[in-house]
């Protein structure tokens, strides 16, 4: 059983490769957290992954047996690569969050499948010695539960972000979820205290556990508000990391362990950072405490004032300083390119144009930066909301395009509002406010926005892309 007796050249090459792969994962992750090195970091991690996969296929031995079914394994990898590559390349940048969620779910499902397949094969000698209550069985069951929850949850998150699954906001939900959680723990204990000769006898129980875990994953994500979805994806991401690490325990595989644990812990921290950017506590996100407030705003709705495209064009052209606040609405309308065209035109007229990027604009933190970068907007023009806020009182016009919650003054004024305390772009400080919107619909957080009723605000209704196009034409004509 000890390591030395298993020694062979192949095994040591395998272990060395795993160490190298782990180093590449760590370096990759480190580099991913700096703008300049991020892309290389990603490629480095990918190289580590390819090395680990190749070495496993070539050198892995289990009780002296090498990897079989190689033809099938390669076929599966080819199929997975083809599908993954095409989806990843084809999907629009606006759909990025649900895509990450989808791929995350795939990893969770793979971890769950591994557990289901390994469970009947727990060594009988081990069971005879210690019963079912041993670390090996625990790793399998945890891998199953966590992987399954991650898979089911990610699929629901995917559906929600894609807009074909709505929120289910029932107060009783959290008690239901806590109950299911207790049932899962009870079930795991029950399985581990059974007195059997072979683990295969308990397979029906494991399948039931799987079904309960699916239910938990679904019900866990269902009540969570759309605006909190990025946090949930990040959380599920770290779940899958932990599930992969359980596989690492199972096979005593260092690459799976370091990769999984690293993502588990880094993902958890990332989740907390995201919560902090939105001024939400992780617990509130998970229990789904959102909404309930905002009545003050609804009753106080005043009159809204519209502006014509030509008036807006004049206003913009004769300004010194313009700040654009892009939101998800801009991205959905695929209007980031035309928006950049407008800012170049204004720049030629001597207008200084900046973009105020709220950390959670779009559907994920940093999502808007990706979308604006896609339209070639220079990096210097993208300013984070904290930095631009002091400058806004000197700004002639602020143009809010398809953004809502990130400019909602309720975050500062209304303690009963669900977004109270969230840092915002203080649009109302600017001298003039133009809000481009498709209609009077509410933002993703589904709350009223008093900014639209502000005296300085003029609404410009219509699809972001065609409105911007009209605006570009008008500005050109001036």
């Amino acid at each position: 059983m000890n390591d030395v007796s298993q020694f062979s050249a192949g095994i040591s090459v395998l272990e060395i490769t795993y160490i190298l792969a782990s180093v590449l994962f760590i370096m990759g992750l480190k580099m991913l957290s700096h703008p300049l090195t991020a892309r290389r970091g990603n490629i480095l991690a990918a190289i580590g992954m390819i090395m680990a996969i190749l070495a496993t296929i070539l050198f892995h031995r289990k009780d002296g047996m090498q990897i079989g079914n190689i033809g099938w394994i390669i076929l599966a990898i080819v199929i997975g690569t083809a599908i993954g590559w095409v989806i990843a390349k084809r999907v629009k940048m606006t759909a990025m969050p649900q895509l990450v969620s989808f791929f995350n779910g795939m990893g969770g499902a793979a971890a769950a499948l591994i557990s289901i397949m390994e469970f009947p094969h727990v060594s009988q000698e081990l069971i005879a010695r210690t019963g079912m209550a041993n670390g090996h069985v625990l790793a399998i069951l945890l891998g199953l539960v966590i992987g399954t929850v991650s898979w089911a949850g990610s699929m629901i998150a995917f559906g929600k972000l894609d807009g074909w699954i709505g929120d289910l906001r029932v107060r009783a939900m959290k008690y239901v979820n806590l109950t299911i959680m207790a049932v899962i723990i009870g079930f795991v204990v029950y399985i581990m205290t059974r007195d059997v000769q072979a683990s295969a006898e308990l397979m029906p129980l494991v399948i039931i556990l799987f079904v309960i875990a699916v239910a938990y994953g679904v019900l866990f994500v269902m009540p969570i508000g759309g605006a909190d979805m990025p946090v949930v994806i990040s959380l599920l991401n770290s779940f899958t990391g932990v599930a992969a690490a359980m596989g690492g325990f199972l096979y005593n595989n260092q690459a799976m362990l370091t990769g999984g644990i690293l993502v588990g812990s880094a993902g958890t921290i990332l989740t907390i950072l995201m919560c902090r950017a939105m001024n939400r506590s992780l617990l509130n996100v998970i229990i789904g405490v959102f909404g309930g407030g905002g009545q003050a705003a609804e009753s106080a709705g005043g009159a809204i004032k519209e502006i014509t495209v030509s008036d807006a064009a004049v206003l913009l052209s004769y300004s010194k300083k313009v700040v654009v606040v892009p939101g998800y609405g801009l991205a959905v309308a695929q209007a980031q390119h035309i928006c950049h065209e407008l800012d170049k035109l204004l720049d030629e007229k001597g207008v200084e144009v900046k973009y105020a990027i709220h950390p959670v604009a779009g559907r994920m933190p940093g999502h808007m930066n990706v979308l604006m970068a896609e339209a070639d907007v220079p990096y210097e023009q993208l300013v984070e909301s904290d930095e631009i806020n002091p400058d806004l009182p000197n700004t002639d016009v602020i143009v809010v395009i398809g953004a809502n919650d990130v400019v909602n003054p309720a975050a500062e004024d209304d303690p009963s509002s669900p977004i109270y305390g969230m840092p915002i772009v203080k649009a109302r400080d600017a001298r003039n406010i133009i809000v481009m919107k498709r209609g009077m619909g509410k933002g993703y957080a589904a709350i009223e926005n008093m900014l639209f009723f502000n005296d300085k605000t003029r609404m410009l209704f219509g699809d972001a892309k065609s409105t911007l196009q009209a605006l570009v034409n008008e500005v050109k004509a001036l």
Partner: protein
Amino acid sequence: MEGFLEFFMANKGTIFMVILSIFLGIEVISHVPAILHTPLMSGANAIHGVVIIGAIIVMGHAETTGAMILGFLAVVLGTLNVVGGFVVTDRMLEMFKKKK
């Protein structure tokens, strides 16, 4: 209980490493700017695709048809996670690169 203690002893090096990895993971990304949250999440997402190694091992020792089918599925899903994750992250970061 004995089963857990035995597992702990057999894996004590590993458990030690796991604890260090947890701190490493926290340390590595705790100063990430908000603009990189999305690519970082996506990159981390690709890295946990390392679960594919487990899928390859289980498929490599599958004997029954049922196990073959499940193993095949696990490898396909794991590959999707790895390839999709890295390619999407690269696509996001490619856009950051263009700005100078």
